[in-house]
């Protein structure tokens, strides 16, 4: 068995876990709950094994030592690792809060992401490292950044859910904000999915994919009509989310998740993610840049955007504690923070150029 078999097992486990979590919520039977958690844990362990095996394959290929064998150098690997962090974060939440309701939301995301990676035929080949990436800082910088991204993703999800259950008036700013953000977010994900399916063989490297193929099947299509229709479709989709947004409120409420738990989770995720991000993303990134390029800070677009993201989360923490911001206002800041994170992660590579251009996301 090689790493891809274990990835397969974990993907199936997450989807089975989703079924079990939904059954648990429906029947409130604690045995079912334990089964759901067990399946998730099996998936997680299996993914961990897969990750280590891929690291070993990488180690054999690169011959550059354990610190440089971290399989986190392209879009495929980083998405898989992101799913791993997400599940880890969820398991911690379940254990700390003794609440299984979120499982029904998180496991399908994880399962679908892995299944999607599999069917999309994303480039799974192991690519050797270019010289700039051959550093022991690669491991800590990239791993900690991704853990922080995952916690920010959780705060984004809980922030959106918070806004969804506290807003009812369709004309209120907060309601429009969350429906439009969520709608665009989902539309972009779908568009990216279409790209992967359309160009799965053509895109040989993640870098090439981002530069040449992202949104080429939809918004950036060579045919103006298809591009126009894509924009119309996305706009219609956002409108539908706005029109029927209250359904999400009902759904979340039926899972017996209270707004206080959501607010607390949003804060906790950021309180864990922010210091990790500062240390792993900014500080270790700066030290590495200093050793590789002789400049710890060069206002390269990726650096600048990570600083902007850092400002947004610093603002979140200060607004919460110095100004006592609570409720919708603070949830909106959390959502904006993750939008900035996404842009730091993908947008910079897509739209702007700079030293980090090889990152592939």
């Amino acid at each position, binding site marked *: 068995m090689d790493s891809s078999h274990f990835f397969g097992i974990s993907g199936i486990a997450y989807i089975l876990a989703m079924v079990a979590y939904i059954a648990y919520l429906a029947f409130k039977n604690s045995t079912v709950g334990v089964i759901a958690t067990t399946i998730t844990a099996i998936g997680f362990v299996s993914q961990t094994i897969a990750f280590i095996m891929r690291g070993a394959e990488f180690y054999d290929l690169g011959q550059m030592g354990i610190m440089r064998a971290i399989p986190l150098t392209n879009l495929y690997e980083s998405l898989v690792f992101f799913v791993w962090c997400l599940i880890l974060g969820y398991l911690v939440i379940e254990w700390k809060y003794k609440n299984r309701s979120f499982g029904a939301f998180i496991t399908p995301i994880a399962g679908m992401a892995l299944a999607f990676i599999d069917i999309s035929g994303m480039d799974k080949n192991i690519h050797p490292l270019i010289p700039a990436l051959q550093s022991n800082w690669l491991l800590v910088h990239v791993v900690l950044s991704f853990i922080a991204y995952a916690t920010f993703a959780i705060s984004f999800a809980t922030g959106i859910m918070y806004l969804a259950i506290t807003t009812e008036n369709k004309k209120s700013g907060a309601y429009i904000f969350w429906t439009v953000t969520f709608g665009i977010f989902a539309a972009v994900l779908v568009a990216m999915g279409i790209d992967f399916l359309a160009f799965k063989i053509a895109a040989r490297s993640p870098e090439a994919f981002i530069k040449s193929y992202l949104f080429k099947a939809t918004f950036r299509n060579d045919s103006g009509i298809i591009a126009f229709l894509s924009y119309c479709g996305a706009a219609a989709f956002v409108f539908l989310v706005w029109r029927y947004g209250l359904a999400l409120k009902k759904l979340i409420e039926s899972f017996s998740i209270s707004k206080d738990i959501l607010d607390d989770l949003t804060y906790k995720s950021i309180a864990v993610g922010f210091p990790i991000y500062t*240390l792993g993303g900014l500080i270790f990134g*700066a*030290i590495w840049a200093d050793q590789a*390029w002789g*400049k710890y800070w060069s206002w390269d677009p990726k650096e600048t955007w990570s600083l902007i993201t850092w400002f947004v989360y610093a603002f979140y923490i*200060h607004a919460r504690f110095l100004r006592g911001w609570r409720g919708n206002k603070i949830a909106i800041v959390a959502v904006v923070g993750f939008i900035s994170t996404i842009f730091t992660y993908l947008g910079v590579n897509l739209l702007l150029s700079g030293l980090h251009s090889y990152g592939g996301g």
Partner: protein
Amino acid sequence: MICRISSCLPGVLLGQAANKNVKEHIVSNKKENQNIVDRIWNFFSSVTLAVIVFSLISVTSIVGTIVEQQAEPERNIKLLAKFFGESLAPTAYRIFDTLGFTNMYRSWWFITLLFVFAANLIICSLDRLPKIWKVVKEPIKPLSPELLNSMPLKREIALKGRPDNARSAVEAALKRIGFKANIRSEDGGLQIYAEKGRYSRLGVYVTHFSIILILIGAVVGIFFGFNASLNLLEGTSSPVAYTRNGKEVPLGFDLRCNDFEVSFYENSDTPKSFKSWLTILENGRPVKINGKEVTEIDVNSPLKYKGIMFYQSSYGFSPSKDSLFKISVTPGSGGKKEEIALRFGESFNIPGTNITGKIADFSPALSMDELGRLFTYAQTMNNPAVFIEFTEGGKLKYRQWILKRYPQTWSIPDGTVEFKDLWGAQYTGLQVRRDPGVWIVYLGCIIMAAGLYAAFFMSHARIWITLKEEKGGAKAIIAASTNKNKIAFEQKIEKLAGGLNG
């Protein structure tokens, strides 16, 4: 974590709360006739200013990542045409250029913004520090029943035995959750109190201080250091480096590039490593560094000499008539291998034969198209190849492409010709830096890590347990508070209470 002013007053200032109210009243009276210093202080200590500066830095930075920094005007005009249209783009560019957006991170107003940010951070911290310092300075004290009653966490437990006997049980239970007990007798019983992580309240200030330190380090670097670059062709040396404005920076010694080499992963154009072999020359004489005259550097390992760092950052290809082809020739008859260096167009002899080889053509990156035609696909030495014509007695015998990266192309009918390198054709791109402030930045980073840890992952937790005599035994009243991570602390208190029960 920084505590919310309104909610942490009772927790932080216990006992002095009443006193504080009076003081605040006085302060608010003062506000009406504050002088100019107070006004400036208040301006810089306001959270509103912080928000405005945060937003301004963010928004202008976004513009700075879109407008290409320090680029050719044409590139940005082309970019601006997408936003403003072809006709308005040159005007828009002039406006952006005048405002400093084309070299934004070095413009006076952006640097001013960073300074305002620093001033705001210092004054905000100083403004709030005394209050926290008071708490940090004073160890936990026993409290009056009224104050204990106002604590967020309370439990009451009945204990067997008299308060004096229960005392050791409480001490042991506190020790189990990591607290060291202090004890004071009161009328009718005892008060046992303990705390942990008092100094963690300073974490926020330590973090803020570290940011200031990093900014100071950056300023020191800008004023007392330099950032320059240097392209050195193999075999040449230079006493200076060049800043991005083209200004010469004397190094105080000479730097020579002996050799440069880039190697690639097999069957790929992904570079595996690029390395330079450098020598420092003082008064024309080589200097030994770590016992060696020649130092090898690559991308993640620079050379340091007299406070100046040389980083391998790029490379390029610039061949000349004097570039040397380095080949080694082994005759097929079993003779000795011979190393040869020669210029383009020159000839060599295969030892023990009358055969002469002449370098007739060269490609830095040879490739073949679908029809089998050869072409050069890059202007760097990705796949260097020489075309050698072999003649015997003036008559062409055979000719062959010999590729450096492919040993199967080295064999010729009369032996082996290995193409080892084209020397003196590649230049190494070095980043040259002197930064006396970098250690301050590193120190700031370490302090920041410690500060963040204290601010986010440690908390100041306090527990008071009053033991009172009751008929047939004792009663323990637990009162506790923490400034963050309340859920985990509650679980600890449960554990404590459970330990006393059992």
